């Protein structure tokens, strides 16, 4: 009997330990899958390093972004090269300003533009798409027709027109990019909403008399977050590209502010003088950051895609 008791005890112990094993939520699953994806994980680290650099970098800067180093002026190709002695770690630009500080500043502005553009897309696009998809019918077709029409307009030109008319400020850039960024998001969210709104849990909420907007925010939007997260990560580089494009043409941010596009434009206009570093450093940060965003977006899509399971 003693042996049997022992066995019972063991069994009950095992039962309790079994109960202690934690279940994994879908999000935890997604995180595990994301971190298993080497390219995406490495991209996350690279991106974190770039962001960290924009915060810590200024403490190491010898020159500010606006100071002109008069000693190199006129001899930028020889004296402005990157070196630790002069304190110009990335060299100087054409006007003798420290490129290290300017790259940090440009990185901040470009990342901010991308994140704010994507942020507006997430807020406005999710709301707009969810409302259109949930209510359906005439509301839906009117709302989505509007999106179709706005999408068919070559927004780059309107954006430039907007910047010229209301002044070329960073704020105006945010407004302009925010005006167009949400359109694609609205379309995607609407499509997802259409498939979610006929699920049983929405029906259950309906029968218990929940207000339509509460259904949208409490029951539908949380189920959209995966798609929204993926699309938002892919939107960030798109917004950065848009801003860089405009700044490259000299129509975006205004001096003394700068961005990747403006820096690349300046670097590109002086390559024939042999000042390659003026193109290389901004280009390096631009390319690795955009690559990172794309890989993170891809990794997120693989991690969150329900078809993969």
């Amino acid at each position, binding site marked *: 009997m003693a042996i049997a008791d022992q066995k019972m005890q063991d069994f009950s112990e095992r039962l309790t330990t079994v109960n202690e094993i934690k279940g994994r939520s879908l999000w935890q699953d997604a995180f595990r899958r994301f971190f298993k994806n080497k390219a995406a994980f490495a991209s996350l680290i690279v991106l974190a390093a770039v962001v960290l650099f924009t915060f810590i970098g200024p403490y190491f800067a010898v020159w500010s972004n606006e100071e002109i180093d008069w000693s190199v002026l006129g001899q930028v190709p020889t004296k402005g090269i990157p070196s630790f002695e002069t304190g110009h770690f990335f060299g100087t630009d054409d006007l003798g300003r420290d490129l290290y500080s300017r790259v940090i500043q440009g990185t901040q502005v470009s990342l901010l533009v991308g994140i704010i553009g994507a942020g507006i897309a997430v807020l406005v696009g999710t709301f707009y798409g969810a409302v259109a998809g949930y209510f359906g019918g005439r509301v839906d077709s009117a709302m989505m027709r509007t999106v179709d029409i706005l999408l068919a307009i070559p927004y780059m030109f309107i954006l430039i*027109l*907007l910047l*010229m008319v209301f002044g070329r400020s960073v704020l105006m850039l945010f407004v302009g990019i925010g005006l167009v960024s949400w359109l694609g998001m609205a379309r995607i969210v609407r499509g997802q909403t259409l498939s979610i709104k006929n699920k049983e849990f929405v029906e259950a909420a309906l029968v218990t008399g929940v207000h339509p907007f509460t259904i949208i925010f409490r029951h539908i939007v949380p189920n959209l977050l995966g798609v929204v997260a993926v699309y938002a990560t892919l939107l960030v580089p798109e917004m950065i590209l848009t801003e*860089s494009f405009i700044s*490259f043409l000299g129509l975006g941010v205004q001096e003394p502010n700068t961005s990747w596009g403006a820096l690349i434009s300046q670097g*590109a206009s002086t390559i*024939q003088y042999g000042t390659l570093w003026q193109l290389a450093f901004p*280009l390096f940060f631009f390319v690795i950051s955009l690559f990172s965003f794309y890989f993170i977006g891809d990794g997120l899509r693989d991690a969150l895609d329900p078809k993969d399971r």
Partner: protein
Amino acid sequence: MINFVIRRIGIAIPTLLILIAISFFLMHAAPGGPFNSERGVPPEVLANLNAKYGLDKPLIVQLWNYIWDIVTKFDFGPSMIFKTRTVNDIIAQGFPVTFTYGIWSFLVAVVVGVSLGVAAAVNHNSWLDYLAVGVSIGAQVLPNFVLAPILVLVFTLGLHWLPGGGWNGGQWPYPVMPVIALSTSFMASIARITRSSMLEVLHSNFIRTARAKGLPANTVIWKHAFKPSLLPVISYLAPAFVGMITGSVVVDVYFSTGGMGQMFVNSATSRDYSTMMGITILYGVLTIVFNMLADILYAWIDPKIRL
């Protein structure tokens, strides 16, 4: 089909009107009028000038007149900066340049992209496949404003093969670099799309059947697999076209071709609102018309699509 075309035109026209209205009201929100100059004009002369150009009328009438002139006479009005030139003159000067290398870029992107995509899919997991995939990933983060300086660095400053700018009436070899700079990223996208859709088609049942009845590989690929695998490419043509129009601005500016993009940026920096507006509307019309044609082409080729 006819219903679809009519409905599609029904979307295109309001889009066009909204585009014109947006740019018109934006232009009128701009500070200063076209006749404000440093010296100033006597008020009577100003009133006369305003009356001549119809600027004394209510905004909505001006908008109507503007649209009317565009629709009936294709007239975008006078330039605000160059007193002797109209917006039409400026467009007539810049458009042929952009149009020429734009068409070439479009052809290069489609032909090379589709060929590369098909070759990559047929030789799946070979070096050619990896090359195609590598190029398409690289081109995603190398927009043309990055590619253009790199091209100049390599082919003009390094190898001295090609001129780094200018147009010279479109003579060989001046358009080569603009075409490469403009077409590469779209070529890469088209290659990627063709490759994945071709792979999907090659793994479908009807291809297995075609192979099983002993057709030669070439017949299977070109007669059976090629056409269905082109559908996603066709749906990408419209965004590619829009992207090329925007991209041509950078190419025009960087290579100083004297095309529309350069005119646009010059008019933007000199605040020549009427020229900016004219070019925006012209590009808008092109975009909207091309989008419409692409949709109709798609619906015509793929009977499953009914919008």
